[in-house]
Structures are given as C-alpha cells and as structure tokens.
C-alpha cells in the first residue's frame, strides 16, 4: 500500500480528542510534547537572561570604569554605583552567566526539550515510560530556576565563586562576602539535579523498553542514540554533583569541614568531585547537539549518514572515555602530577571519537545534494565551529602548553567555540527544524537566514580574537584587565570584542521575534516539510495527544535518503515496500 493511503487511514483514526481541561493540557500536562515545549520556553528565557549578563560583563571589559549607558541607573547601589559595575557584582555576573547558560539554558534546551519531544516520537512510543514523573521533572526545574534568579536580590548579592564554585572561596562567606547567594546557588542546583535525574531515568527506560516493532538499536536515529547516552551521563554524573554540593552547603551552613582546610578539609576534593561530574557534563552539553546535527545534515544532504555504525560507536566511545578525563581541568591545581600525565593521554585520546564524527559528517555531505534550508545552515556551521573548538582543545590537552594558557581567555574562546559554536548552533538548527512539528507552522526562512548570517559573523568576531587575548596571557574572570601593564595593549581588542558581542546579542532578537511571530503567522507546515524519514514526520503537525493511533512498524534505518528503491529522494522508516522483504534485525546496511 502506498504511503499516502497509510497517512489517510491514520488521520481518520486520530479521533480520540483529548478533552482534558486547559490546565491539565498545557500547564500540568503529562504529554511529553507539551513538556518539551514548556522546557523550550523556559530555557529560551534563561538563554536570553544569560546573554544579558554576558553583555554587562562585556561592557565592563570593553569600557572599564565607564558608566553603563541608559540602564546604569536601573541597578541597586550594591551592584552598580553611579553607572559603574562593581567588582563584587562582576564576579556574580561571571558566576551566573556560566550557571544559567550551562544548567538552565543549554542543558535543558538539549536534554529537556529535545529529549522530551523527540524520544517517544522517534521511537514510535505513545509517551514517556513515566509521564507523571516527566511532568515532575519540569515542575522541579521551574522552581530551581526561579530560586536561582532570586539570588540576585538577596543581601550580599548572588554567588560569586565562578560556576565551578571552587572551595574554599565558595565554602566560607568570609572569603567571598556572599552568604545567602551561595546557599541559594547550592539549593537551586540540588533541585535542578533531581529534576535532571528524574528526566534521564525516564528517557533511558523509554528508549530501552518502548521502541516500536522493528526499531532495533541500530535503526535508531543518531539523535536518539545521543540522547540515550546523554541520559546515562546525566543519570550517573548529576548525583555526584548533588552529593558534592550538599557537602558544600553543609560547609556553609552547619559548619562541617569537607572543603575547609583549617580542620583537615580538602579543597582539591571539591575540584575532583565537581569535575568528575563536570566533564561528563561537557559531553552532556555536546552529544545531543551532535546527534541532532547528524539527523539534520543527513536530511540536508539528502544522503544516508556516512558510517552510521562508527557514528554510534564514537558516541559510545565518548560516553565511556568521558569518565576518565576530568583531571585535565585540574592540571594547574596542584594535583598529583603523575595523575596529570594519565589524564593528558586519556584527554588526547577522547579527541579521536570527536574527529571520527566530524569526518563522517563531511562524508555525509560528500556527493550529496545539499539543501541549504535554515536548519542545514546552522548544522553546517555547527560542524565548522565545532572543528575549531575541538582543535583548540588539543592545546589544553597537551598539559605543558596548558601551563601557559590555563585560566586565560584561550580557554574562554575554546569553551565558547564548543558551547556556542557547537551546542547553540545545533540548538538553533534543531529548533528551526522541529518547530513546524511542534507548532504546525514553519519559522520564516528569510528572517531565519538573516539571523543565521548575522549570528555566524558576529559570533566569530566575538570569540575568535579571544584566542589572541589568551595567547597574550589575558587571565579569565578579570574585572578590570587594565590593572596589568602587559594587558593594557590588549584593551582595544577587548573593546572590539565587546562591540561585536553587543551586535551578536542584538541579532538574537531577530530569532526571538521570528520564533514568536511564526507561531501565529508562519506558513502551515504539513506533516513532513523537510521530507524526512523519521517516524515523527508521519504524524500531523503538531502530533495528537498519544502520538500514534496505530503503532508504526519500522522497516529500515532513519537515513534512507536518495534510495534507489523509490523515485522520490526520501523513504520513511515505517513505509512497507512490497519489494522489500520482512525487516531483518540489523537491516540497516
């Protein structure tokens, strides 16, 4: 039977209207699609906030000692005095920019949004394994975020020990002058950690147990593979952070001594625990981006992903090796140098799977028929930028070089090339790609392209020169670089970066407007605007409550583009071809 016929029958079978009241439907919904969209709206707000904090920092760095224009008067005296950002507030900005971006923007955008939205749809399940726990996961993330926001308004200001909260600075308010703020930081992250754990064990159970008939492991889209491995990393890494933060919290509140030296506490213990979580976290922030970019690149190239299996193995490799490299964040920490050598080798080795992925993406584009729709533009620039981020990582991995560039702007450049150039471009790609599925309308391609090009240009103008800053020894987290003679010549570069940063921020507003406007005025998408093979594209946009009226049966892998079996250049996973025999396990190749 033809695809159209199937679609028709399914459309008719979508008769079970859900008559849930508004609040159960959109607020306390257990539908993974609604929860995903809730996460999307929440984390985009925090993304915007994180960006604003960065702008304040960039003003101080670009124009130290100059009063903030216009908004300067809006801040309380404790933060900004006659227009000039105070050092205490600057440290809070550094800390909170990192915290919000990592924990409340990028992580929920990747894991919360697309984990929720895509997993059941792409594996052909009606919903998550535990819908109510899924809802709880979102409704724990919200209070965590609100609490974290509240920290700005408490006595003594918000946490100011960096997003890594190195003890003892973070463990004793005498050192930082921050008491309540740091406590709030801890509690908020404990709650958020619980939320992430609830989410991830839901994902894992769903993927293991609820795949549709024929959706064998090696027919899963790479986005699902990456989200699966990410969920495992979250599940096992987050509790370590929670444990560490609980000890930190006790150090601050009930006077324990875990990380406070006077009575035998070990500051390095905090760093080890934090980075034992922190490095898997780094991969939590990039793996889903890789997975979704793979889906989009295959679609944009109209070609099967090059080396699907090695892509999966690379993901697994990263997921395993990622546990043995945390020490490379601590080369300068006074850690046991012998340990350092080991971590250097493991760190260099983990660059291999990442390289494999890059080469496979390029292999996918090779001899493709590349369609430059907005998601593809973002996905391609994800690859281009991730290459830079990956290569600049090699400098730090070589520990002697790291001696010089550690804690300088070279690191800042590196991490932003991975987190912004990598994750965020992939996030833009994924949002524009699945937006029609989520809201039934396409985002405006014209404004999408404008946003993409402005972002791409200004992004590089902001972060590429930071490599040079770092190479000249410019330390991170400096409130006023001009204090140092050897940094004074770099000031014009800082100014340039700041101006580019403001323009970069401004160009994001285009995305915001496009996102909101297209919700109402965007062109109707139809079930499959990108001619994609995934199961979710066999459903109407947006898909009905409960997803599939009849369980799809999967006959092939998700990347059968330009297959010779059919005349059009895509071949949905669930379309039965009379020619094709009953699906054999491992039948991807």
């Amino acid at each position: 039977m033809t695809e159209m016929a199937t679609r028709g029958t399914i459309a008719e079978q979508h008769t079970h209207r859900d008559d849930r009241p508004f609040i159960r439907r959109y607020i306390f919904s257990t539908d993974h699609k609604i929860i995903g969209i809730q996460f999307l709206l929440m984390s985009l707000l925090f993304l915007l906030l994180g960006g604003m904090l960065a702008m304040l920092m960039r003003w101080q760095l670009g124009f130290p000692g100059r009063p903030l224009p216009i908004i300067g008067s809006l801040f309380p005296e404790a933060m900004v005095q006659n227009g000039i950002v105070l050092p205490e507030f600057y440290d809070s900005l550094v800390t909170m920019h990192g915290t919000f971006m990592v924990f409340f923007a990028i992580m929920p955008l990747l894991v919360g949004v697309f984990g929720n939205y895509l997993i059941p749809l792409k594996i052909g399940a009606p919903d998550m394994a535990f819908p109510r726990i899924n809802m709880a996961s979102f409704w724990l993330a919200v209070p965590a975020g609100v609490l974290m926001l509240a920290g700005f308004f408490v006595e003594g200001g918000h946490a100011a020990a960096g997003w890594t909260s190195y003890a003892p600075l973070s463990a004793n308010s005498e050192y930082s002058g921050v008491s309540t703020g740091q406590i709030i930081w801890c509690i908020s992250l404990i709650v958020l950690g619980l939320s992430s754990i609830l989410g991830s064990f839901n994902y894992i159970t769903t993927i293991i147990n609820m795949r549709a008939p024929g959706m064998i492991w090696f027919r899963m889209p790479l986005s699902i593979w990456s989200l699966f491995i990410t969920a495992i990393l979250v599940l096992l890494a987050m509790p370590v952070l929670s444990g560490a933060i609980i000890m930190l919290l006790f150090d601050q509140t009930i006077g324990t001594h875990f990380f406070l030296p006077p009575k035998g506490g070990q500051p390095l213990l905090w760093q080890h625990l934090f980075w034992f979580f922190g490095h898997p976290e780094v991969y939590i922030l990039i793996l889903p981006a890789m997975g979704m970019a793979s889906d989009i690149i295959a679609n944009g190239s109209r070609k099967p992903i090059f080396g699907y299996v090695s892509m999966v193995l690379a993901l697994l490799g990263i997921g395993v090796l990622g546990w043995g490299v945390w020490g490379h964040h601590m080369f300068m920490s006074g850690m046991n140098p012998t340990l350092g050598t080991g971590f250097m080798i493991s760190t260099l080795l983990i660059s291999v799977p990442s390289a494999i992925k890059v080469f496979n993406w390029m292999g996918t584009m090779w001899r493709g028929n590349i369609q430059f729709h907005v998601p593809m533009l973002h996905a391609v620039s994800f690859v281009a930028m991730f290459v830079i981020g990956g290569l600049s990582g090699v400098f730090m991995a070589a520990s002697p070089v790291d001696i010089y560039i550690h804690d300088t702007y070279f690191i800042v450049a590196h991490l932003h090339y991975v987190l912004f150039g990598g994750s965020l471009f992939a996030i833009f790609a994924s949002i524009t790609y699945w937006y029609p599925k989520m809201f039934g309308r396409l985002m405006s391609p014209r404004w999408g392209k404008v946003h993409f090009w402005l972002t791409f240009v200004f992004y590089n103008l902001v972060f590429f020169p930071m490599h040079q800053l770092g190479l000249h020894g410019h330390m991170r987290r400096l409130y006023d670089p001009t204090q140092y003679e050897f940094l004074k010549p770099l000031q014009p570069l800082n100014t340039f970066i700041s101006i580019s940063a403001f323009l970069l921020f401004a160009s994001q507003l285009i995305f915001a407007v496009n996102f909101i406007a297209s919700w109402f005025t965007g062109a109707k998408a139809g079930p499959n605007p990108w001619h994609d093979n995934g199961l979710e594209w066999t459903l109407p946009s947006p898909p009905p409550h409960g997803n599939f009226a009849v369980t799809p049966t999967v006959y092939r892998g998700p990347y059968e583009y330009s297959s010779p079996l059919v005349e059009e250049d895509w071949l949905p996973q669930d379309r039965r071809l009379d020619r094709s025999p009953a699906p054999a396990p491992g039948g991807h190749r």
Partner: protein
Amino acid sequence: MEPLTDTPLAKPRAHHPPYIAIFAGLAVLTMTELIVAFLPWHKRTIVILLIAMAIWKALLVALYYMHLRFEPNRLRILAVAPLPLAVILVTAVITEFRW
C-alpha cells in the same frame, strides 16, 4: 512469547529462594563483624576482614533479596554499570594523598 515482560505467573509458584536462611546468614555475618572489629589484631587485617564480610552481605542482599540472580543478564549489567565509575573516582583521588 513476550520478551518484554516477566509475568510473575511465569515463575513457578511456591518456589522462592531460601529467604529466612539468607536472613540468618546476614545476622551471623553481622555478629562476626561486631566481634572481629574489637579483636586485638593488626588494624589492616581487621579492615580487610570487615570489608570482605560487608561485601559478602551486600552480595547476599543484591543477589537474593533484590533477586538480581534471577534477572536477565541485560539487567545485571545495567545494575553493576556504575560501580567501575565509583572505583575510578575513589582510587584516582586517593593517589593525591597516599602514593
């Protein structure tokens, strides 16, 4: 056949592991631990013995009370997966202080 489910019906009735015997074992091991802990032996010996017994007890609970012994291999693997990470973390960090 239903690979996805382990319907309790599938298990033969009235065939349960020797729960009470295991309970007795746990109790005895705890007693022994209490005695060993206060014997005038070399500290290291005591520590090794105690840890060995603790692991033994833990295994009894995991294998029989959590009936891991009767679960499919996939689940067993999943259950022990985090342990290597715990070992990596502790051993690596310990070298900071004793190496």
